[in-house]
């Protein structure tokens, strides 16, 4: 082994091994690595919030005489008024502001970006002549499966009527579609985890140990 890597590579490698040592059993090396991670994260995010939010949006503008920027600070501080019974009602003002902005942004986004395009995507292949005319056989089959999947899954989540008869059959088919979706998600999750393990092992073998070129 040619372990000639720089000091930071050594630090990263030893911390990686310390974290993985937990797979054997809990131990002091793992604890040390865990505490270092938590400490560094806290420090990192404190600095991050200061330089990316507090300083450029508040202290820098205030220094330049832009006193309007004090309004969000006041609204933010009003969030704490709910800690005291007599002033708790004041929290409605910042919450109203947050709700208003969030709703304004999200309603438009949900309708324009999600609901309408998804509905269009599900039903548009069923315009007259499109199915088996415009698309090839397997694409058409795919669109039919998509529509059946959407409808039966919706039926499965329809709880206002007992799942019996035609509704029961639909819900049963919906479960199969859900299971296939969960299976696909699980498969992708396994792939993601293996990728992360590969990334760490590649780092250990290539960048730290230099046993692979």
């Amino acid at each position, binding site marked *: 082994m040619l372990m000639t890597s720089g000091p930071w590579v050594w630090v990263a490698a030893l911390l990686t091994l310390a974290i993985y040592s937990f797979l054997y059993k809990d131990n002091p090396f793992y604890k040390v690595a865990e505490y270092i991670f938590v400490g560094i994260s806290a420090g990192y995010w404190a600095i991050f919030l200061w330089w990316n939010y507090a300083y450029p949006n508040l202290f820098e503008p205030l220094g330049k005489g832009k006193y309007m920027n004090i309004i969000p600070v006041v609204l933010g501080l009003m969030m704490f008024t709910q800690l005291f019974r007599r002033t708790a009602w004041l929290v409605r003002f910042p919450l109203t502001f947050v709700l208003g902005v969030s709703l304004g942004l999200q309603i438009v*986004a949900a309708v324009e*970006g999600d609901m309408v395009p*998804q509905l269009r995507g599900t039903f548009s292949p069923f315009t007259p002549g499109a199915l088996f005319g415009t698309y090839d056989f397997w694409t058409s089959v795919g669109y039919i499966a998509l529509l059946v999947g959407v409808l039966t899954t919706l039926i499965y989540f329809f709880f206002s009527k007992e799942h019996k008869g035609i509704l029961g059959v639909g819900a049963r088919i919906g479960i199969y579609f859900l299971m296939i979706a969960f299976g696909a998600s699980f498969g*992708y999750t396994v792939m993601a985890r293996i*990728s*992360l*393990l590969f990334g760490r*092992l*590649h780092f250990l073998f290539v960048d730290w140990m230099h046993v692979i070129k």
Partner: protein
Amino acid sequence: MSVIEKLSKLDRRYVFLAVAIAVSLPMFFPLGLPVEVTAPVKQLYDVIEELPERSVVLISIDYDPSGAPELQPATLAILRHCFKRNLRVLVLGMWAPGVPLGMKALDEVAVKEFNKKYGVDYVNFGYRPGGAIFLVNLGRDVHDVCRTDVYGTPVDELPMMRDVHSAKDIALVVTMSMGVPGSDQWIFYYQARYRGKLATAQTAIGAPRYYPYLQTGQLVGLIGGMKGAAEYERLVKTRGFASIGMDSQSAAHMLIIGLVVLGNFIFWMEKRKK
């Protein structure tokens, strides 16, 4: 104790060890398994291939080091493709820890491989806070939300940015995303408003969620996890990190499939016994 009983009580640490060996061995003894290119990846490749020269491609680095094994290879492959096609690249990111990863990728591809000129062929605006609100404003006025680049240079002093003002000047956006803010925000707050071409590279965990957006045309391409990155590497004719990793992936997947079958067989045998 029968074999079945022994296996049912097997210490799970043997499974961890087996997975580690399955991932490690192909790194020393490559299997050279083929990587087939799937349609969502090819679609993105074709979109970049068809862009006119000097078009602007925006790459959003929306991941941190924990997503790097899956997304960094895709970033490198897409950058290679863009510079090979003589496109201009605008890099920014909504994840602060992704900034060094973006800089590293640009240094590796733009500087060392293609000798591209900063400010003319590519720019890097680094971390951009604000999520959804940032994206809404980005499509309206790039100069307003990106006043200085990652080095503190005013946007007006960057030659490349003279004709890049709003969403209509950006030919394609590719978000390399592992969470929030990421693909969701780009789809809902940018693509839905400005109708620009948008593609995404996702960590494998997130990828299945974005296939519906591909079907509706809201996404023009999708790279899913390391496998997707390996496919893109194949399309741009490089054998990078993701391609090397696919042998390990396949070996680990075979092992896991075997373990799932074995686990079910043991469960079935025990149930039969009772």
